[in-house]
């Protein structure tokens, strides 16, 4: 009688570890994607007109948004976003990008009333360093 229980326990633990590993990797991906988008945003998002006017290095919100969008599309994760990326210009030369990605479970969704997916969050901040 213990044998089926043992098999079940091992299978269950294995399934849980697989699902948690998927979430862990997705979280990692979200952070990396946010870092890449923030990095692109602080360079490609420069307000060139302001710089030429002598107002120093400041970011143009429209360019920043465009750079973030292009970066996310280039990384192939646009379809997995649960909401539009949050882009916050903390200071005139610092951008924070927050992404919410959907992570689909592999085993948990086969349980009755089990969750099909979860949402992971990745946040990154980039600041311009002029050299």
């Amino acid at each position: 009688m213990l044998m089926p229980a043992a098999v079940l326990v091992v299978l269950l633990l294995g399934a849980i570890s697989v699902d948690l590993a998927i979430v862990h990797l997705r979280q990692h991906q979200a952070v990396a994607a946010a870092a890449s988008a923030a990095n692109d945003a602080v360079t490609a998002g420069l307000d060139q007109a302001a710089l030429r006017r002598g107002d120093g290095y400041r970011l143009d919100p429209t360019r920043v948004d465009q750079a973030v969008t292009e970066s996310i599309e280039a990384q192939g994760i646009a379809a997995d976003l649960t909401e539009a990326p949050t882009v916050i210009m903390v200071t005139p030369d610092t951008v924070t990008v927050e992404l919410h990605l959907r992570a689909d479970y592999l085993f948990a969704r086969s349980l009755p009333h089990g969750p099909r997916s979860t949402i992971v969050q990745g946040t990154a901040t980039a600041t311009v360093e002029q050299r």
Partner: protein
Amino acid sequence: MIRLRRFRRARGDLGQVAGIEALPFGVLIFVVGALLITNLWAVVDTKGAVDTAAREAVRTYVEAPDESVGRLRADAAAREVIAGYGRRPGRLALTVEHEGDRPFGRCVRVTITTQYPVPALRLPWIGGLGHLFDVHGHHTERVDPFRAGLSGSGVC
């Protein structure tokens, strides 16, 4: 009067505990389960390593003075990361792609893909045996449109 009982060798299965076969099978199941989880962790760990390697490689590449130097430095950076994770740098494969096949320059979006083989069986202290599949990692970044040392337009 004392009777000495002769020692009789046990025959048959008298005295066996019912269900004793559960012990070896139970041990086997837990060993297989432990190996499964170890292998799963090997995949997760490798994925983390190749993703980090790709990220470091891209960051090194986009700051290089030219393409050839960039490739060399990116390759070295990626292998350093893999070595840092306790893996063999020689097994890492790395490809560099420019968006639209544009030459190295400002605003070019660079994607680096890293690839590392995962062993079919990974045992603690012994290492990996066989080859199951390759784990891929990729990262993308744009070459700084306003950086010095490169020719071309800064408009992306």
